[in-house]
């Protein structure tokens, strides 16, 4: 069970293998669903986005499987899903329906997560925890989810200028905390 297996699955899907497609769904959909639900409170929207995402993978698998593309299968799946989410939110904004605020970032620290410090390091971890939720949301959208400033603005329902300001403040705050 490695990422090369997932790339192999995509190659099989490119040849029309339904079983490979179902297997890819089985392996990646829980992760995608959980991650999307933490960014959008509307389950119906999340379901739509997931459906569109996996359909796109089915339709264009041959393009994704191309050797020149690089990246991992979950990488592309997330890219597709994140952009579909932004598109769906944009449609809502256009229709005048208020864009759904992302779920507020949680604050309560938990006890047994020292094992994760190997990923982040103590200083970074506590710096992140001390960031205000506003700034952390922007950071998450841009750094972790790979969205651009414009897309982050749509996702969070704030103006572009605000996104940029918060990103700058987040960077300053992190730099201070880490030094």
């Amino acid at each position, binding site marked *: 069970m490695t990422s090369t297996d997932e790339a192999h699955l995509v190659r099989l899907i490119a040849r029309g293998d339904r079983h490979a497609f179902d297997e890819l769904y089985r392996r990646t959909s829980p992760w995608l669903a959980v991650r999307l639900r933490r960014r959008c409170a509307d389950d119906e929207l999340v379901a739509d986005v997931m459906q569109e995402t996996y359909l796109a993978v089915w*339709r264009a698998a041959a393009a994704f499987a191309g050797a020149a593309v690089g990246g991992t299968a979950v*990488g592309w799946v997330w890219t597709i899903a994140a952009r579909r989410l932004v598109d769906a939110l944009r449609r809502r904004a256009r229709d005048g329906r208020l864009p759904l605020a992302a779920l507020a970032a949680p604050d309560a620290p938990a006890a047994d997560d020292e094992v994760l410090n190997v990923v982040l390091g103590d200083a970074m971890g506590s710096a992140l925890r001390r960031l205000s939720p506003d700034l952390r949301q922007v950071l998450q959208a841009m750094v*972790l989810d*790979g969205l651009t400033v414009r897309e982050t603005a749509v996702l969070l329902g704030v103006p572009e200028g605000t996104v940029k300001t918060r990103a700058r403040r987040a960077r300053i705050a992190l730099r201070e905390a880490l030094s």
Partner: protein
Amino acid sequence: MVRAVSAAETAATTYAWAIHAEALRVRAGRRMAVDGLDLSMDTGVHGLLGPNGAGKTTLVRSIATVLRPAGGTLTILGEKVNGRIDLRALRRQIGYLPQEFGYYRRFTVREFIEYIAWLKEMPAAETPAAVQRAIERVGLTDRADDRMKTLSGGMVRRAGIAQAIVNDPRILLLDEPTAGLDPDQRLQFRALLRDLGTDTCVVVSTHLVEDVAAACTDVVLIDAGRLVHQGVPADLAAAAGQDSGAGDSAAERGYSAILRRHRETQS
């Protein structure tokens, strides 16, 4: 996935307008097609209206950085087009559908848009997803892998729109995008325009006043290379007033009325 965010990306915007023209003059052939144009456009859908020969296509081509202005200033995303600028970086943020959309007939829709994505220097890793997204947004999903020569005129136009939006540009220039679209497709196109207009500066040059009135947040009327009127679509209908000028709808009558009044003041 985890990516580095550059300082340039989060730097505060230093310009007020996405597109700003001051006393702009652009030559087309031997004629000065744009002759002293003052115009400012920002996020939203801007409908560019005007009679034939008004300079619409020349204006669009100069914003697309295909034509160099002969005089005045044209500032796109804060960069003055006349000066020494990083043309490549600027063009990566522009999407353009020319009036005469030329394509490679033996390419499939997907292959052609991928080629354009390569021309726009999009990273190879992002291209397949971006191409698929562009195809789906214009409603060509079912024909994505058919050769372009098998498409009808309206579908070709939609493929043209797809290639313009594949790089998610900040400025989108569409010259006569609805040519050949049937009414249903035109409705879908207007919905797409409204989506795009929420965070992009879209300039739609068109003859169809109805398209403009329905989908645009801002109407720009030019004649003989100069700005005649800029305002919300409701202005057009309002300008019709009691005039029984040419036109089947209030917007068309308003358009004719404004144009006529302008020409009267010019002569």
